[in-house]
């Protein structure tokens, strides 16, 4: 995501970083490029204008310090202003109230409200340890309620049933009562998608908000939205008391100008960003990290946080001890590594966050397909436990059996065995003195920072 904008700005600013001083002329040229890049990224026109004015004002009046050259100073200004436009710091949900804390979702049709409800339910359950109930007040779209029911089952949230024959207000009233009796901490209320100019529908959600008195009213906006994001966000913000914004579908190649626009126009913080179709693909929105990503500086912080949260530490430590004792890194361990990598959202999601990776050509990025790792896992699954522990016993006929069992070809099996050998070699270096530090650098990208790092050895 945001790659194209990042490419553009990085290209433009690369030219800047060689300049001896910031002049009206060279800043002007760079700013024109930034303007076009932002417009192509669907940032609202008046937001672009303000942004350019602020950057220009600061750049020309800038006393360049000793530690930065003018070009770097310019990059820093653009970065800071990007962060500023998107809202400076992350705003968390404010759920401090007598339970159940009600969260109301609003947005256009197809923005991603229902999926966001499921993701948010999982997020609150896993990371905030809340008991979450969900209900759908979408009585218009066919099967909208069934969709939420299925998703609620997937994330194990308490689903309060409703039917298309009920009034949204009646559903809401009943849901709050039921959430209370179930001792739910949070009640997430999904609503029907509506156009901002549909007065009847806007009146309906206004009434819902007045009735529910939600602690949070979140506006869900599609990252691919064009200039209309500004109008819609404003209309919803005028009709409802919004408390925050969720940027959905931000994992595509949309440049996500909506993120910059919505915050600037409504003044309401972007609280979450949807990064995929799976229910765990919701991340708290960090303007500073996203700005770094837009400028091609990477997002290592998110990567580390993800590693800490999703990697099974006990497993990692067990493996670390095993390797240290000089035991071999066998295929069973290899499979464990693959599994943990999948837990982190796969290679693609990790590489996305590494510095400089945004500049890889798109087709090279596409090749970092997770399918390869799934295939490797399947090949190992087709081996007997004995073969996994002692890969050397795998001869020609065993290879054929494994290939058949995993639906692959013998060369695939060979490739896997070779890769395993290489990893084994790398692991051996660890046990040598000082080898650890060196290996960590090589391994981190590959293993998603989960490489065994025993305490006290740094």
């Amino acid at each position, binding site marked *: 995501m945001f790659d194209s904008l990042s490419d553009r700005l990085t290209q433009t600013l690369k030219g800047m970083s060689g300049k001896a001083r910031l002049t009206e002329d060279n800043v002007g040229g760079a700013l024109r490029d930034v303007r076009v890049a932002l417009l192509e990224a669907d940032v609202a026109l008046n937001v672009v204008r303000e942004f350019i004015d602020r950057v220009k004002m600061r750049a020309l009046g800038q006393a360049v310090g000793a530690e930065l050259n003018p070009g770097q100073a310019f990059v820093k200004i653009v970065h800071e202003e990007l962060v500023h436009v998107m809202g400076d710091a992350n705003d968390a949900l404010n759920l401090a109230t007598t339970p159940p804390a009600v969260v109301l979702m609003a947005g256009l049709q197809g923005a991603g409200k229902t999926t966001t409800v499921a993701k948010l339910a999982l997020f609150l359950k896993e990371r905030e340890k809340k008991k979450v109930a969900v209900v759908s007040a979408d009585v218009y779209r066919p099967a909208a309620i069934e969709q939420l029911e299925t998703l609620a089952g997937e994330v194990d949230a308490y689903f309060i049933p409703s039917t298309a024959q009920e009034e949204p207000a009646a559903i809401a009233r009943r849901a709050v009562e039921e959430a209370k009796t179930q001792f739910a901490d949070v009640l997430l209320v999904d609503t029907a998608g509506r156009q901002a100019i549909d007065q009847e529908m806007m009146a309906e959600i206004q009434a819902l908000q007045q009735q529910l008195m939600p602690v949070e009213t979140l506006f869900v906006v599609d990252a*691919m939205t064009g200039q209309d994001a500004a109008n819609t966000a404003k209309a919803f913000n005028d009709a409802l008391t919004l408390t925050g914004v969720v940027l959905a579908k931000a994992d*595509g190649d949309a440049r996500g100008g909506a993120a910059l626009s919505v915050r600037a126009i409504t003044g309401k913080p972007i609280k979450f960003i949807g990064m995929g179709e799976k229910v765990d693909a919701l991340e708290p929105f960090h303007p500073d990290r996203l700005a770094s990503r837009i400028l091609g500086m990477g997002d290592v912080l998110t990567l580390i946080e993800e590693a800490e949260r999703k990697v099974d530490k006990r497993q990692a430590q067990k493996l670390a001890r095993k390797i240290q004792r000089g035991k071999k890194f066998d295929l069973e361990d290899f499979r464990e590594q693959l599994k943990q990598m999948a837990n982190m959202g796969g290679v693609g999601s990790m590489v996305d966050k590494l510095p400089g990776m945004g500049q890889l050509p798109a087709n090279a990025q596409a090749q970092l397909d997770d399918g390869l790792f799934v295939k490797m896992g399947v090949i190992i699954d087709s081996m007997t436990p004995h073969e996994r522990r002692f890969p050397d016993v795998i001869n020609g006929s065993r290879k054929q059996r494994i290939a058949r069992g995993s639906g692959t070809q013998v060369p695939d099996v060979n490739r896997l065995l070779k890769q395993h050998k290489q990893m084994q070699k790398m692991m051996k270096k660890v046990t040598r003195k000082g080898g650890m530090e060196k290996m960590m650098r090589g391994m981190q990208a590959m293993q998603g920072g989960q490489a065994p790092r025993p305490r006290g050895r740094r």
Partner: protein
Amino acid sequence: MSEQAQQSEKSGFWGKLRTGLGKTRAQLAEGVGNLLLGEKEIDADVLTELETALLLTDVGVDATTEIMASLTAKVKRRELNDTVALHQALADMLKEMLCPLGRPFTLEGIDLPAVIFFVGVNGVGKTTTIGKLAKRLQGEGHEVMLAAGDTFRAAAVEQLATWGERNGVPVIAQQQGSDSASVVFDAVQAARSRGVDVVLADTAGRLQAKTNLMEELSKIKRVVSRLDEAAPHEVLLVLDAGVGQNALSQVREFDAAVGVTGLVITKLDGSAKAGVLFAIANETQKPVYFIGVGESVDDLKPFSPDAFVDALLSGD
């Protein structure tokens, strides 16, 4: 919503398109409105305002630059002397740009059953469009069948089934998580044996940057073409009217994966403008077959470039 549906087709349609495009009109009016105030000298301010108006409707930097360059050249050659003439020139140019996109949708010349795929990113309204088109084709006397190819999203099958029930159209479906290629294959086979004219195949929404999901689309196409080499006869890319410049990438990537033959623009009843159509027209000549102007089943209309531009520019 039901009163809306009961409105007479013509006035309902125009009313909706006008309300829908009202926002666009209001915005273009800022730029174009001045043109309408009467004969006035064309100066740099007038042109800047016009450029702003175009950018605000998602026309995009490239297409806007092109339109402005052409208008400015005409002004310089003294072909356009006042703002009224400029307005006329703009309208003509916009219509000319969209003209190649206005081709009618027809099943003529197709060996039935015709197989039509619906593809697009998440949440653009593929399933709803299928529901509406099924009704329309039935009205034209065709036997229609729906294939629930979105096997990924929760309750997508149920959503399509509801549309099938409403219109009395058979729906071929398997459970969630099954292979969508096999669902569509089954549907085409069933359509052949039952003598159905048209199979409308739903697919799961997918972001065009996801290589593996785009591969899956190609696979559906490959599998279906085993039954009939010409199938799918049409691949309709559904676009949300609110989409910005990302629409260009959507058209490009979906075309590369499955060969898009036409576009459908949905949700034109909102404040979104679909000005990106001009940017698309600048790059490719895919016809826009239908536009969606409302939520009821009769709100899917054929696209007319002239009517679209007129609604966009008319000042009232």
